[in-house]
């Protein structure tokens, strides 16, 4: 980049008529030379299409700058000057047309006073040929000093040689697809030919002449003098004599410029970081002087000019318009001018100068005068509004009615029905799929225009599944009824018997509101009454302040007859796990028995809800119940819970190991595949059998691991469910008995059992943080304990040591909670005693 621009001297832009015709301007159609008739300064020859113009720029406004403007018979492809006939003193002009070339002489006729001078062309030679031409090069081929020969490259790459108007011979190359530049090197009497193989080949004239005959006789290979493999398309070549014996060849590629001596020695190479368009190499001084400097001007696509000497950048400036051809000129009033040709045929003459025009597009920096008081006021306003937003004080649309009023939601479950539609893939799970239970959501909206869209999401914990988890509605018009099926899908423990329905409503202002409904699943969906078979390990007593009710009135999901035969003792078996829970009545007491804690929660939950419900329906006021459990029970419960956590963690570890293994195998598989690809493509094809074997083996192992992972995932989910079941039970008990509700809520939030959801099983990670907080802040752990139990940060939560600490923390929390419960009970008794005493006192 540079701060300099090319200084403007002269331009023909005013003489140019505006008719943009893409592709009309050929880059070879710019030539600067001096003629005898105008010996005081260089003339610029330009052709655009078939129009040829000769300019002689000067600063004089009054005199004409155009020497000649003539319409040629055909399109001009290239203009060259030289001595093409032996008997002429002046430089002649050679004009190449697609199928002919013409040689002219520029003459000047002195005019009368007013008319001025008249310039005109006298044609000397015209010659036609059949092959369509692309470009030409001329020079004293074969070291003939008297005149220049002509070499024309046709579009197919063949070279035809002419002397004046006679055809000499032709060379055909079959490795040219797009014609590339050809140039003659006078000092070594050879030609630079660029091929479509992106190789620069140098043939001597002699060789070409012989080869032309060879091609007719036999197909013998013609070996060039020397070659250079540039590896990119050469767009321009220029040869310039730099010393008495040597010339330099400068070749421009796509991004490089190469400079060779004519014997093949590379002088230098420059890599550009711009796209070069054209270049012009020139000599400062004379070639026979030892101190001559070879300079190269390169123009870039973004209309910049770079001048290099060797690899050093001497000067850099920008053009006023992009140039496709560049040359030097020596004018009367401007020695060493710069001639550029632009795409639309405009010729600019300029020179280099140093008058920096500093970056004009950068706006000037000014220090505005500001009123500090005004700024302060603005700031205060901004801060005040910020505060409002942050504190959420300002409800933007407090005046409007809430969404809940607009949209009425009713959710319900129906009776489980036989699943007749689904095909059973797995025989062993047949019993699970038999029943399905419709869950129905009814949305009623009186004013549909307030609601943009509604999304209903059903969330149910394993082993339940929904037929459709999400349903989207574009607006509610009147009443919408959404029916969804819930059924059992796996043999995990039942931990949650409610289906959570999330309704996300976007109203017409774009505000989003989420409403939640929960529906209770009927017990007949997940369990069946069976015969009792003996005692169970764990017992839970539920004491009420009303006499016991028949079970058939509570478990209304089953038919009365079905339950009648069991009388006061009813045993329910889960459909999923086949485990059993027994309920008994005993006066005002219900007794619940089960072999495992995991089985209790679902039936207990259901039972208590129904029980309360029943009493409400009967109009019994002030119904209360109390779950009785002893210390041993809670000890066992906590123990079981921790056991569940441990199992869950263990399974997750196993899963992780499997996943790691799969990762490894998959990487291995990819690498083997890649190697194999290389082997297939290599020269000669390598032995692929071992690799193929390896690939197949890896594939087999991959499949095996994937199956294992699927199984393991199921196991993890089951373990998670067991964990959730026991956890829910624990919290249920805590809720019933503990006094400090806030603490219980905290614990419940900490446990976040609902976060165990299908494949999302990262429960331990979620809980660890909360546990530390609860221990440190709620239970006021000592510093020592804090340190001892803090998870080791550099290891994962599931690592052995962290898991141990985690379990210990959990145990501490529950121990403390239950201890408080029992303390409470004790103190309650004390309280009662005190009250009695008080009563006594009052009586007295």
């Amino acid at each position: 980049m540079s701060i300099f621009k090319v200084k403007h001297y002269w331009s023909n832009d005013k003489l140019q008529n505006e008719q943009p015709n893409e592709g009309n301007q050929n880059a070879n159609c710019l030539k600067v030379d001096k003629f005898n008739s105008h010996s005081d300064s260089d003339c610029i020859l330009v052709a655009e299409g078939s129009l040829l113009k000769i300019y002689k720029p000067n600063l004089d406004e009054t005199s004409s700058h155009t020497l000649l403007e003539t319409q040629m018979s055909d399109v001009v492809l290239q203009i060259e000057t030289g001595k093409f006939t032996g008997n002429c003193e002046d430089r002649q002009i050679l004009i190449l047309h697609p199928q002919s070339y013409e040689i002219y002489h520029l003459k000047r006729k002195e005019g009368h006073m007013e008319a001025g001078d008249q310039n005109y062309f006298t044609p000397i030679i015209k010659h036609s040929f059949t092959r369509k031409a692309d470009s030409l090069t001329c020079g004293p081929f074969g070291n003939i000093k008297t005149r220049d020969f002509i070499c024309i490259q046709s579009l197919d790459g063949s070279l035809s040689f002419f002397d004046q108007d006679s055809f000499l011979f032709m060379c055909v190359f079959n490795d040219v697809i797009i014609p590339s530049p050809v140039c003659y090197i006078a000092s070594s009497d050879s030609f630079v030919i660029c091929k479509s193989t992106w190789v620069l080949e140098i043939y001597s004239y002699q060789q070409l002449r012989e080869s032309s005959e060879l091609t007719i006789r036999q197909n013998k290979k013609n070996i060039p003098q020397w070659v250079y493999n540039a590896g990119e398309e050469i767009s321009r070549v220029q040869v310039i004599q730099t010393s008495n014996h040597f010339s330099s060849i400068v070749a421009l590629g796509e991004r490089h410029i190469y400079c060779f001596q004519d014997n093949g020695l590379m002088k230098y190479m420059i890599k550009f970081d711009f796209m070069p368009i054209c270049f012009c190499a020139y000599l400062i001084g004379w070639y026979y002087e030892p101190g001559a400097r070879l300079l190269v001007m390169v123009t870039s696509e973004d209309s910049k000019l770079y001048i290099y000497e060797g690899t050093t950048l001497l000067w850099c400036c920008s053009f006023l318009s992009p140039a496709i051809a560049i040359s030097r000129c020596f004018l009367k009033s401007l020695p060493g001018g710069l001639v550029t040709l632009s795409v639309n045929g405009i010729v600019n003459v300029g020179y280099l100068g140093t008058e920096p025009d500093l970056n004009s597009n950068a706006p000037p920096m000014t220090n505005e005068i500001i009123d500090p008081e005004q700024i302060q006021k603005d700031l205060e306003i901004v801060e005040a509004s910020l505060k409002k937003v942050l504190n959420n004080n300002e409800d933007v649309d407090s005046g409007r009615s809430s969404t809940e009023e607009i949209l009425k939601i009713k959710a319900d479950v129906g009776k489980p029905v036989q699943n007749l539609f689904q095909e059973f893939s797995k025989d062993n799970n047949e019993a699970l799929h038999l029943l399905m239970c419709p869950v129905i959501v009814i949305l009623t909206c009186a004013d549909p225009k307030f609601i943009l869209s509604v999304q209903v999401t059903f969330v149910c914990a394993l082993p339940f599944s929904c037929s459709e988890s999400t349903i989207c509605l574009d607006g509610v018009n009147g009443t919408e009824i959404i029916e969804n099926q819930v059924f059992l899908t796996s043999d995990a423990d039942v931990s949650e018997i409610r289906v959570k329905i999330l309704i996300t409503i976007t109203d017409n202002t774009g505000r989003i509101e989420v409403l939640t409904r929960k529906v209770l699943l009927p017990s007949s969906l997940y369990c069946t009454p069976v015969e009792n078979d003996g005692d169970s390990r764990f017992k839970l007593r539920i004491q009420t302040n009303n006499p016991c009710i028949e079970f058939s009135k509570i478990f209304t999901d089953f038919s009365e007859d079905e339950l009648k035969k069991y009388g006061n003792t009813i045993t329910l078996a889960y459909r999923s796990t086949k485990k059993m829970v027994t309920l008994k009545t005993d006066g005002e007491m219900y007794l619940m028995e089960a072999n495992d804690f995991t089985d209790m929660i679902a039936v207990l939950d259901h039972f208590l809800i129904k029980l309360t419900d029943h009493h409400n329906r009967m109009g019994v006021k002030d119904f209360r119940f109390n779950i009785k459990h002893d210390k041993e029970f809670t000890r066992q419960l906590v123990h079981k819970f921790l056991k569940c956590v441990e199992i869950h963690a263990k399974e997750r570890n196993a899963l992780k190991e499997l996943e790691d293994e799969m990762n490894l195998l998959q990487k291995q598989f990819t690498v083997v595949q890649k190697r194999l690809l290389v082997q297939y493509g290599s020269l000669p094809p390598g032995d692929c059998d071992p690799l193929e074997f390896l690939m197949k083996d890896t594939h087999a192992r991959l499949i095996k691991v994937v199956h294992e992972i699927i199984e393991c995932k199921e196991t993890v989910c089951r373990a998670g469910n067991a964990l959730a079941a026991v956890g829910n039970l624990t919290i249920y008990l805590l809720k019933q008995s503990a006094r400090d509700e806030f603490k219980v809520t905290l614990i419940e939030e900490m446990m976040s059992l609902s976060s165990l959801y299908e494949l999302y099983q990262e429960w331990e990670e979620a809980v660890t943080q909360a546990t530390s907080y609860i221990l440190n802040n709620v239970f006021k752990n000592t510093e020592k304990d804090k340190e001892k139990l803090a998870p080791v940060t550099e290891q994962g939560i599931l690592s052995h040591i962290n898991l141990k600490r985690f379990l210990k923390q959990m145990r501490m929390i529950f121990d403390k909670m239950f201890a408080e419960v029992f303390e409470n009970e004790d103190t309650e008794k004390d309280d009662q005693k005190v009250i009695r005493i008080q009563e006594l006192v009052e009586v007295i």
Partner: protein
Amino acid sequence: MDIEYRILNLYKTKQFDACLKLCETALQVKDDRMIEFIRMRAMTIQAKVVGNGYEEVEYCPQQDELTSTAVAKTPRPGTAFQRDTKTARNINSSYQKTATATVRSRAGTHTAGARSVRTALSTASRMSRAATALAGGAPFTPGAPLSLRFLSKEDKLFVPASKTLFEYVFYCEGDVRKAMEIAFQAQKSEDTTDWWWNFSLARCYYALGMYRNTEDCLRQALKQNKHISIYLRLVAMYVGLNQPISALEVCKQGLSVFHGYTPLLIEQARIHEQMGNSALAVKEYRIVALEDPSNMEAIANIGMYNFYNDQPEIALRYYRRLLATNPAGPEIYNNLGLCCLYCNQWDLTIPCFRQALYFSADPDIRSNIWFNLAHVALSTGDVTLAYRCLQVSLAIDSKNEASQHALQALDARLRARRSNIISYNNH
């Protein structure tokens, strides 16, 4: 004027968009091999420009997990690029330190910006995207043009056409595998060994992330021809592999062939800089600036070096030169602002930053500028302003770690001061 001449003119003067359009119309009328090839070349060059195919050195180190082509994961100390990120963590102990440390990286954003201009598309997939990104060109219909597609390797045209074909497939179609096939075939059918095919195979392997094969191919190509592109590719590959010592070795070899050659010198300087050897890097940047005074990366780096060498006045002069010669951007004004700050040119500091904000569009840069403004505010003693600046910085880009830490530290300091005042009042 015949259409083929117009196409040739457009192609030779590198007006590819118009050229492609004309080719399209010409090919509808008749089948012409030359026009077809010109079209292919024009599309290739455009795709190459879009996909940075001309840049031998790419700046996204390939971090493909799957490429496990046997590269040691833990380099020996001192042989890898080391980024000292650890210091940024100890914010509580030294606020000042982090402030300057981040200022450093900010001042560096200028060069980073210069680089990101040419950030390369690193993988084959991205290369293929470059092919689809041929915006403005002729409608790209994949698979349309090639009678060549069915060119058999026995055809006598195959050898001259193969390079064009390879580049077309590699850049326009982005099909590395097919390109490799062409390369293999061409190598088979050509009787002389051609460095270019080795070089191109290396490009393919690099795109596939197979560094070892890349290295082999490049080394082989280097035996056949000492082309500058090979050296640059080799350097880029070693940098990508995080082996700066080998890269420097290649630079040295290249410089022994091409004396004082700027692209190699710049690579060397970049490597030195990344390895934390900035004094050496600056020496090389100076050589580059002498050889190619228009190289803005070199100048920006020299300026940055001076800035951290406690010579903000000199850095200011370098940055002003950059401002004069380059299109104005947020980074440069930001750096100028910082220089002004340290040169005690208070009147210019804020306007510079205002300009920087005016030019910045990227939230990342905006956030950093606000961070620097907080620094300015702190150095004038205006803690409230600093606080606000940091808040703005975070509001623009909440992930700006430097601002987070600074805000935290500032908060702590304010709290400490407040408690001091309270305790003082209590006394």
